[in-house]
C-alpha cells in the first residue's frame, strides 16, 4: 500500500530477537474478536443456519427480528432476494477471511523471497528486482482487478490474484531494506567466514530477523485486503454473486441505506469489527517488536 523510502528499521546489533512488549498489555479484545470470527467461520456448516443462497422473492427485505415485521426465522432480516442475512454473514466470514488471509500469505511469501534475495545478493540482482518492484508498486490495485474482471470475469481467484500481484511489492521493499541493514552487521560476516552458503544465511540468519516485521505487515494488511474486496464489489469486480462475501453484500445493499438499512449495515459492521481488530492487533505487534517500524 505504501511506497517505501530508503529509511530502514534498526534491529538489535547482535542479531538477537527483538525485545519483549513495550506499550500495552496483550490486546485481548482484538485477539478475542479475531478468534471468535475464525471459529465461527470454521464451524459455519455445523451451525444449522438456513441456506445462504436460497432465495425467496416473497420474503425479500424482511427486517430484523426486533423491528416490526421481523421474525426469528430471519433474525437479522433478509436481503433483496430474500436470503437470510445472518446466515450470509456467517458464511461470508469464510469467504472474506479466506480472501484476506490467502492474499496476504501469497503476497508476503513472494515479497519476502524477493526482498531477501535482492538484499542478500545486491548488485545487478538487486537492481533488476527493485525495478520490477517499483513498477509493480506504481500500478493501481483496483485498476488491475478491474482489468482482470473484465478480461476473464470476476471470481474469488481473480480477486486474490489481482491484489496479491501488486501487494507483494510492498513486502519486498520493506524486507529488502531490513536485509540491507542486517547485512552490515557482524553476525552475517561471521557466518560467511564460517563458510555458510547463501541459502543458510538467508534462512538461518536473515529470515528470522525479518519475521517480526513480516508479522506486523501481514496483520495490518489482512484488513486492507478485505476493504479492497469491498471496493471491488462496488465496482463490479469483486467476488461474484451468489457467493456471500461481506464486501459484495454491502455493495448490493447500498441503495437501500435508508429503507432496508440492515442489508448493508450488518455486513458493514462485520467488516468494521474484524478489520479494526486486525489493525489494532497489528499496531500492538508493531509497538511490541519495534516502535521504530513506524513507516509500516
Amino acid at each position, binding site marked *: 500500500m505504501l511506497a517505501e523510502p530508503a529509511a530502514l528499521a534498526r534491529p538489535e546489533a547482535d542479531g538477537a530477537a527483538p525485545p519483549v512488549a513495550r506499550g500495552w498489555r496483550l490486546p485481548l479484545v482484538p485477539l478475542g474478536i479475531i478468534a471468535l470470527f475464525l471459529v465461527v467461520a470454521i464451524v459455519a456448516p455445523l451451525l444449522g443456519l438456513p441456506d445462504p443462497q436460497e432465495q425467496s422473492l416473497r420474503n425479500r427485505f424482511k427486517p430484523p427480528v426486533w423491528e416490526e415485521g421481523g421474525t426469528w426465522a430471519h433474525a437479522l432480516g433478509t436481503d433483496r432476494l430474500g436470503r437470510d442475512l445472518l446466515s450470509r454473514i456467517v458464511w461470508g466470514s469464510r469467504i472474506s477471511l479466506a480472501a484476506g488471509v490467502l492474499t496476504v500469505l501469497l503476497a508476503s511469501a513472494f515479497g519476502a523471497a524477493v526482498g531477501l534475495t535482492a538484499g542478500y545478493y545486491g548488485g545487478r540482482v538487486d537492481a533488476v528486482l527493485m525495478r520490477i518492484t517499483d513498477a509493480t508498486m506504481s500500478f493501481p490495485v483496483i485498476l488491475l482487478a478491474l482489468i482482470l474482471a473484465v478480461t476473464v*470475469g470476476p471470481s474469488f481467484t481473480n480477486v486474490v490474484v489481482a491484489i496479491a500481484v501488486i501487494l507483494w511489492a510492498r513486502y519486498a521493499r520493506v524486507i529488502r531494506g531490513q536485509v540491507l541493514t542486517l547485512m552490515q552487521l557482524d553476525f552475517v560476516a561471521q557466518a560467511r567466514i564460517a563458510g555458510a552458503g547463501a541459502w543458510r544465511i538467508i534462512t538461518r540468519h536473515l529470515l528470522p530477523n525479518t519475521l517480526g516485521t513480516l508479522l506486523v505487515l501481514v496483520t495490518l494488511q489482512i484488513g486492507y485486503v478485505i476493504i479492497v474486496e469491498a471496493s471491488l464489489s462496488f465496482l463490479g469486480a469483486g467476488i461474484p454473486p451468489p457467493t456471500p462475501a461481506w464486501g459484495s453484500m454491502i455493495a448490493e445493499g447500498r*441503495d437501500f441505506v435508508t429503507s432496508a438499512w440492515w442489508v448493508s449495515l450488518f455486513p458493514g459492521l462485520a467488516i468494521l469489527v474484524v478489520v479494526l481488530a486486525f489493525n489494532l492487533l497489528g499496531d500492538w505487534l508493531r509497538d511490541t517488536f519495534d516502535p521504530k517500524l513506524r513507516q509500516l
Partner: protein
Amino acid sequence: MKRASATASVLLLILALMGFVLAGGVSAQPKTELTVALSSFSTEVLDPPLGGHLVKYYLSMIFDYLVGTTPDGQPSRDGGLATRWENSPDYKRWTFYLRKNVKFHNGDEVTSEDVKFSLQRNIGKRSTTGYAGPLRTLIQDIETPAPDRVVIVTKEPTLIIPTYLSRSLSTEGMVTPKKYIESVGDDVFARKPIGSGPYKFVEQVTGSHIKLAAVDNHWRIGTPKYKTMTFRLVPEEATRIALLRRGEVDVADVSRERVKELEKEGFPLHYRREEALLTMWWVLGPDGRTGPTKDKRVREALNLALDRAEIAQSIFAGRAEPAAIPLGLSWSFKEVGFKQTPDMLYPYDPARAKKLLADAGVGSGMSLDVYAYQLPGLPEGKTMAEAVAGYWEKIGIKTKLIPVDYPAFRKAWFDRSVPGAVGYFNIANRDWIGAYALLEKQAYTPSKPSDTVNDPEIDGMLSQVMRQTDKDKINTLIRGVYARLRSEHHGVPVVYLHSPYATSKTLGNWNPGSVMYDLFLDVLASGK
C-alpha cells in the same frame, strides 16, 4: 465592559451561524435553468454518426431531424424539418418538403444540400449508428432538385424511409451543416457541434456534464422556458437522489426500487410506460441451436419455471408487467393488429416444467450458464439474473451465474463461443418499423452474428417485409413472426419495464413520451 463584549460575541456568533445556514442551505434552482441527472451518457460524442442510442437525450436538443416524431412515437409534420413527404407510386422515390427559414446556430440557412450531406455522412463508413447498414444497402441516390426539396431514391420499394430518418429510432435523420463541417473538419465539429435545434452547444466535460443554451426563438418550441439545459452524468443513484433533494437537479432517472421512497416525500414521478422489454435468449452455436435448448420442450419448460408476477412485484417494485412474447415489442402490437391473448402469458408452473424436462430426456443434470450484468436503465440486471437462475435451480437445473459487464457478454454472444448460455437485454420498445429493425437483427439467421433464433420460417417471413409495400401484407407477416416466436418459445420474455423519472416538485407537467431513448425535454422547455 465584560458583559458588553460577551453580548457582542454572542451576537457575532449568531450572525455567523445565520450566515452559515443561509450559505449552506438549499440552493434554489433558478427557474431558467434545467438540469438533468442521468446514470449513463453512452458514448458522449456529439457527432450524430458516431452516436450510440443514449446520445439522443442531448443530441435531439442540438440537432433537428428530417422527420419529427410525436411523444408517442408517430411520425409528425410538426417536429421535423420536413413539413410533408410523399412517395412515388412504386415506393422507390421519397420526396421531402423542407421547412423554410431554418437556420443553423452559426447563421447558415438549412437547405436540401445539408440534408443530403448529413444523410450521406450519417450512414457512411464512419458511422456507428444502429441502422446505417440497412439504409446503406437500401438507398441508391439522394437528389436535391430545389433548396427546399430532397428526394431519396431507393434500390427496392420500401416503406421504412421516413421512420428510419425520424426521431423515433436513432440519429441517422439528424441534419448537420455541410459548409461548416467541410470547412472545420470532423474532429473540430465533434468538439464544437453546430446544429439547428432549439439548444446550442456550450460546453462539455467528458465524464461530467454537457451544457446547452437556448436559441432565442425556435420553430420547434418558440421561446423556451429554460435558458440553459445541463445534462449531468451521475452514476451513483444515492447521489442522484441527493441532488434532487437538494434542488441541484430537476430531473433524475431513478431505479424502480426507490420509487416508493420518493413518492412518500412528494417528488413527482413520471413514467415511460413499457419503455423496454426485458427479454432473455440463448446464445446460438456456430450453426444454430445446440444442446438441450434445441428441444422446444426444454425452452418451454424454462419459461414455465418463472413466476413473472412475483418478479415484477418484488424486483421491479411493481413497475413492470409480465411479458409473453419473446422479442415482442408491445408498442408495435396495435399497429400490426397483433392481439396478445391471455393464454399467451406463461403461467407459473414448475411442476409442468419439470415434466417437460423429463419428457425431453433432460431431467436433472442439465446445466445452464446465466450471464449477469447491469445495463443502462436496468440497475436490477444482476439481481434479476440471480432470481431467474434461482427459479431454474428449483426445477432441477444446475445454473452457473457469470457476472461480467455487457461488452464481455456481447462478445461471447457474437463470437458464438458459449452456445446455450443465457443473456438478456432491456430492449427499448418501439413502433412496427423499429420492431422490424430489431427482429431483423436478432431473429433473422442471415444477420449473423446477432441472431438468437435461427428459425427458417421466421426468416422467410422477415425477408419479405422489407420489400413489401402493402401494409396489410406487412402486418400479416409480422403477426406471423410474433406468433411463431411465442409458439416455438424462441426466448424467455420476462417483463415490460416502466422507467421512472423523478422530478423536482416545481417542474410542472411533463410527458417524457414513449420514444426510444428520448425524453422530449424540448417539449418540456417549450414556450408554445
